[in-house]
C-alpha cells in the first residue's frame, strides 16, 4: 500500500505535465481536467465483460448439491472430491476448479454469483441474444445503441463519469457501448503506430469533408493520450486473441490501466470469445476449463491493475444465454437459456450466491431442456448501476433498459 501511495504521489505531477504537452500537440484531442472524488463519496468504476458464445453456467458454477446434476452432465459432471474437485462456494453451488482467483475473491467478500439468470430473450440465436444483452432492449432487432452508452448519456453532463465517455475495448467496439455518447476505443497494440502529424492532418481533412470519420478519429485520440502516459504506447506485441488465456489477460490489463487512470473513462466494456461449446466441452479439464482459466486470469489482472480504486470497482461478467442442461450427443452442450453472471470487485457486497434455484428435474427445466431462468439479468444490471452511479428508477426503466418498469433493480448488490 505504501508503494502504491508513493507511486500516485510521484506520478501525478508528471502526468499533469504530459497532459499539457499532449494538449498542445494534438489539437483534436481533448484535455480532461482532473476531478478527484470528494472525501467520503465514491468515484466508481464499472467494467462489463461479455462472454460471446453462451457460457455453460452449469459447468462454471456447478450445482453439485442438486441431486439431478450429475446424471444430466454424465462424463463432464464436476465432483466435490477427488483430484480435480470443484471449489466450494456455499455447500450447494461449487466453482469450476479452473477459477481459483474467483473462489478467493468470493471467500473474501469481493465477489457474488448470480445463477439461473438470463435476459428476457428466450430464443437461441447467439447473435440476437447478444443484441438483447447489449442493447438493453426487450427483444432483438437492428439496434443502434447499447445500454452502457445510454447510461452515460443519462448521467449529468460535465466533469463526472459522463464527460469521460465509455470505453469499448477491441478494434470493433461492442454494441453495448455504441450510441450517441462519446465512445473511446482501445485495442492491444500489435504494430507500430502512425505519427501525430499524419493524424493531425487527417483530423483536419475529416473536419472539412467527413464528420463521421472526424468524430471517430477524435474519440480514438482520447484513449491514445491516456495509453501513452501509462506506458501502453507503441510497443509491438503479438499473442493470442480474445479467445485465448493470453489474449484475455492482455485485454484485461489494458482495460484496467485505462479505467484506473485519473483522467480515464469510468465505464468500459470488453468481450471474450470462444464459449460456444457444442462438442468436447470437457469437465474439470479441457476446452471450457481453459477458457474459464483465462477468465479467472483476467479477473486477477483487473484486481491488480485497478488496485488503488478496487474498492470503487464492480466488474460484471455476463453472457447471452446458457446451454442445455443435458450433455448432447457429442459430449458438449447445445444452446440453452439460464446461466450465471459474476459480480467481482471491492465495491461488491460479496461472498453470496444469488439464486432462486428452479431445480433440474425434467419438468423444472425451461422447455424440458434448459436451466430455467429465475433472475432477470437486467434487474441485476439495474441494481448495480443504480447503486454505483446513483441513477433513479425511472431513468433506468425508460431510457437505459426501456420497458422494464415492472422489473425492480436488485437491491444490495453494491456495498
Amino acid at each position: 500500500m505504501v508503494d502504491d501511495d508513493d507511486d500516485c504521489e510521484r506520478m501525478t505531477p508528471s502526468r499533469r505535465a504530459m497532459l499539457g504537452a499532449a494538449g498542445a500537440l494534438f489539437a483534436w484531442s481533448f484535455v480532461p481536467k482532473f476531478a478527484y472524488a470528494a472525501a467520503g463519496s465514491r468515484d466508481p468504476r464499472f467494467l462489463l465483460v461479455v462472454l460471446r458464445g453462451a457460457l455453460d453456467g452449469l459447468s462454471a458454477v456447478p450445482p453439485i448439491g442438486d441431486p439431478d446434476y450429475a446424471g444430466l452432465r454424465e462424463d463432464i459432471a464436476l465432483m466435490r472430491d477427488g483430484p480435480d474437485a470443484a471449489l466450494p462456494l456455499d455447500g450447494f453451488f461449487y466453482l469450476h476448479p479452473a477459477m481459483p482467483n474467483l473462489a478467493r475473491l468470493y471467500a473474501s467478500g469481493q465477489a457474488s454469483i448470480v445463477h439461473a439468470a438470463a435476459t428476457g430473450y428466450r430464443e437461441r440465436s447467439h447473435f440476437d441474444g447478444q443484441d438483447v444483452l447489449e442493447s438493453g432492449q426487450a427483444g432483438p432487432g437492428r439496434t443502434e445503441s447499447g445500454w452502457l452508452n445510454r447510461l452515460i448519456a443519462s448521467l449529468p453532463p460535465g466533469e463526472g463519469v459522463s464527460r469521460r465517455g465509455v470505453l469499448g475495448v477491441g478494434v470493433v467496439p461492442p454494441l453495448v457501448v455504441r450510441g450517441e455518447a462519446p465512445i473511446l476505443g482501445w485495442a492491444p497494440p500489435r504494430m507500430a503506430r502512425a505519427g501525430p502529424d499524419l493524424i493531425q492532418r487527417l483530423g483536419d481533412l475529416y473536419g472539412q469533408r467527413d464528420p463521421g470519420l472526424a468524430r471517430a478519429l477524435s474519440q480514438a485520440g482520447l484513449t491514445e493520450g491516456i495509453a501513452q502516459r501509462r506506458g501502453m504506447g507503441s510497443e509491438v506485441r503479438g499473442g493470442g486473441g480474445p479467445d485465448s488465456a493470453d489474449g484475455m489477460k492482455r485485454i484485461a490489463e489494458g482495460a484496467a490501466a485505462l479505467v484506473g487512470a485519473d483522467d480515464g473513462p469510468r465505464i468500459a466494456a470488453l468481450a471474450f470469445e470462444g464459449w460456444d461449446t457444442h462438442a468436447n466441452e470437457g469437465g474439470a479439464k479441457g476446452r471450457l476449463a481453459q477458457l474459464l482459466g483465462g477468465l479467472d486470469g483476467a479477473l486477477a489482472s483487473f484486481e491488480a491493475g485497478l488496485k488503488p480504486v478496487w474498492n470503487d470497482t464492480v466488474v460484471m461478467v455476463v453472457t447471452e444465454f446458457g446451454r442445455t442442461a443435458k450433455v448432447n450427443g457429442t459430449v458438449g452442450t447445445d444452446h440453452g437459456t439460464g446461466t450465471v453472471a459474476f459480480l467481482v470487485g471491492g465495491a461488491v457486497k460479496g461472498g453470496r450466491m444469488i439464486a432462486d434455484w428452479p431445480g433440474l428435474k425434467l419438468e423444472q427445466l425451461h422447455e424440458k431442456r434448459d436451466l430455467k431462468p429465475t433472475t432477470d439479468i437486467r434487474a441485476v444490471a439495474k441494481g448495480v448501476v443504480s447503486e454505483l452511479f446513483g441513477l433513479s428508477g425511472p431513468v433506468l426503466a425508460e431510457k437505459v433498459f426501456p420497458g422494464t418498469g415492472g422489473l425492480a433493480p436488485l437491491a444490495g448488490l453494491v456495498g
Partner: protein
Amino acid sequence: MASPSDARSDSVGLQRFGLGFGVGQSPAIRVGARDRLLAEIDRRALPQPAGLPFSGTAEIGAALYAFEDRERSGREARRAAQASEAQVAAAQPALAQSVPAAPASSTPQSPMAQPKPAAEPALPYRTYRQEVLARVRLALDAETGFGERLVQFWSNHFCVGATKSNLTRIMAGAYEREAIRPHVFGRFEEMLVAAESHPAMLDFLDNRLSIGPSSPAGKRRGRGLNENLAREILELHTLGVSGGYAQVDVTNLARIITGWTVVGREAVLGFPGSFAFNAGLHEPGAPPLLGKPYGQPGKEKGLAALGDLARHPATADFIAIKLVRHFVADDPPPALVRALSAVFRRTEGDLAAVSRALLESDAAWRAEPTKIRSPQEFLIAAFRALGRKPDFGQIIGPLGVIGQPLWQPAGPNGYPDGNEAWASPEGIKTRIDVAAGWGRQAAGNVPDPRLLTEDILGPLLSPETRQAVARAESRPQALALMLMSPEFQRR
C-alpha cells in the same frame, strides 16, 4: 456523352461494386463502368486461384491425415525416449546425484532440450498461407472485381473459421474454391448444398460428430445429435433468425442431416477428408421441418430439405437484405430489397439474375457513398492503387490488426458488415497506422503522389484531399493521406 456527374457516379459505382482502381488503369476503366461490371456476370465463370499445392479437398485430406500421423508418431517416439531416460536415471540414483549440477539446457542427451530448428510452419498453416496469397493475387489482378467481391460476400455468408481445427484451417481456401466460387453466378440452392456438405463446414459446425440417436451407431455407442450446423443453416444461411422456425425445426433438421460427415483416415467411404453420407449415423424416420415431413432415403432427405429452404420466401428476403446492406447502405432501401427478393423468388435463386438486378438498379448505382470499405476491401484497394504485389506476411499482418484476416471470423455469422463495426474510433485509428506503414513501404516506387492521387480518385477527388496530399510533409505521408481520404475509404 458522359456529363461530369456521370463520371463521378461511374467512379462511385466501380468502388461500390468492384475492388478499386489499379494504378494506370483508372481513366480507361471509368468509361462504360456499368457495362464492364455486367460483362462479368455474362462471363458466368470466375477464374480459380493459381499456383496452389493441392488441387482440392480429397488431396488435402490425404495430406492432412498423413501429416497428423507423422506428428503423432513423432510425439510417441519422444515420449518413449523420455520414459527410457527416466528409467535409466531411476536405476542409477547415485550416479545421477554425483553428476555436478549443470544447467538443464546444456544436457545434450535429451532430444527435448535441443533447440528446435526454425521450422517451416506446419502443413495446415503453410497451406492456409498459400490459399490466402493465391486468393489475394486473384483479386489484385481482376479488372473491375465485381465477381471477386461476390466471392467475398458469399464466403462470409457461408463462413467457416480457420481457427477451429487443423481441418478447417487447411481446407478454408479449398472450401471457398469448391463450395462458393463456382456458384457465384449459379443457383443459390447449389451453393447452399455445396457449402453444407463441404468437409470444412461439417467440421466447423460439428455435424461430422452428430449421430442419430436411433441410428445403428447411436444405439451402439449411446451418442447423439449435435444441433450446431442445423441451427446456423436456418438462422444464418437461409431463413434468417426471424424466418419463422422453432426449436423443434432446429432439432429435426439436425436429425435430417445426420450422416453428412467427413471420410476418416481409414478411407472406408471414399477419399480421406472428403464428404460422405454415412448411413450408419443417419437417424431413421421422417422428421417434419416447418411442418413438412422428410422421409426420403439417406442423403436425399437432407437435399430435399435444403432445396425447400433455398426456395423459401424468407430466404429470398434475407439474402436480398444482406446483399443490399453489403453493397449499397447500412440501412438498406426497402424498395431495392423488395426488387431483389422478387427476382430471387421468380428465378428460384438464380444468383446471376439477382446480381444483374442489383447492378441495373439506378437506386443501387446512384446512392451516395456512405459505406466504409471493409478491411479486406481496403487492403485490396490499397495494393491495387499502389501497384504492389504483397507477400503473405504483408497481407495477413495488416488484416489481423484491422480485424478481418481471411476466413477467421469470431463466429459463424461471419464478419460484420456496417460502419458501426469498421468506422469505429479504434478501427479508424488502426487503419491510419496501417496506411502509414503502406505509405512508407510504397514511397520509393511512386514518382509523384499527387499524380497518383489524381489517377486513382479521378472525379471523386475533392479539393480538400488534393490540397492535403499536395501539402504533405513527405511522400509516405502523402500516400497515407490518399489511402485514408474519405474518397478512398467510402464507397
